[in-house]
């Protein structure tokens, strides 16, 4: 007996029953049974993100060795031209926050 032919024959019979099942309101029934919507807490995400960025940015600045260009430049800017210094510091924080947001919102997380 030809085994391959046997397999084809059996597969044909078995897979013959694998028809598509129409939705027919099934999805709606599932959605109607879902628990009430979660309260959106985007503002909380924003607060957490900003706080985390502030903390990590400050830690980053403090942990930089005194002699590094970044440290001296930012310190000098903050002392001499506070507005530009704060701007540069905010830019660094934004980059950190952006990286953190990318990590937090990653679908694979």
């Amino acid at each position, binding site marked *: 007996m030809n085994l391959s032919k*046997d397999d084809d*024959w059996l597969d044909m019979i078995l897979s*013959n029953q694998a028809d598509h099942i*129409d939705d027919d309101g099934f999805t709606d029934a599932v959605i109607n049974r879902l628990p009430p*919507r979660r309260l959106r807490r985007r503002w909380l995400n924003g607060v957490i993100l900003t706080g985390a960025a502030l903390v990590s940015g400050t830690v980053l600045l403090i942990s930089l060795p005194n002699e590094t260009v970044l440290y001296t430049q930012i310190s000098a800017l903050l002392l001499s031209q506070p507005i530009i210094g704060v701007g540069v510091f905010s830019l660094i924080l934004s980059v950190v926050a952006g990286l953190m947001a990318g990590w937090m919102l990653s679908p694979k997380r």
Partner: protein
Amino acid sequence: MTIPDSELIARVRLDDDRHAFATLVRRHQSNVRGLLRRLTDGNEALADDLAQETFLKVYRSLTSFRGGSKFSTWIHRIAYNNFISYKRKEHITEVYEDHMAEDTATGSDLHGPSLQHDLAYAMKELSEAERTAVRVCCQCGFSHSEAAQILQLPLGTVKTNVNRGREKLRRALSAWQEGVI
């Protein structure tokens, strides 16, 4: 353009996006209901109840889905676990014979109801493990490794059960072979 499952899952996780979840349900409902109909021997009402429970569990557990397996495999594993829990709760040890006739009657016209009837009874002669493995692999079209994940069994066990089941079916239905090929 079809939005991938991963994107829809992310939307449900982040924003509790019901539309995204409905898309996921619509996309996978046929296969999940098909598997459960086979496991319940054609009891459509019971299969659909179990399928609804399955998708509710999927919704609740979506945050724990890490993408280690395919999303469809993960859903089918939940569906299978749901079926096993139901069986344990109801103390069901045998197939639902009342629904077998209905199942065979709604079978495809290609081979006629008689072959479907014989197939249903040949399936009954298989052990439960063989029957489940044949249903998941041969009728639902999952690979052996996917079936192993769904049934939470070693790959070798699944392969053995499928081969044994197929061999028994081949023997039981051999009289039909001439007329089909």
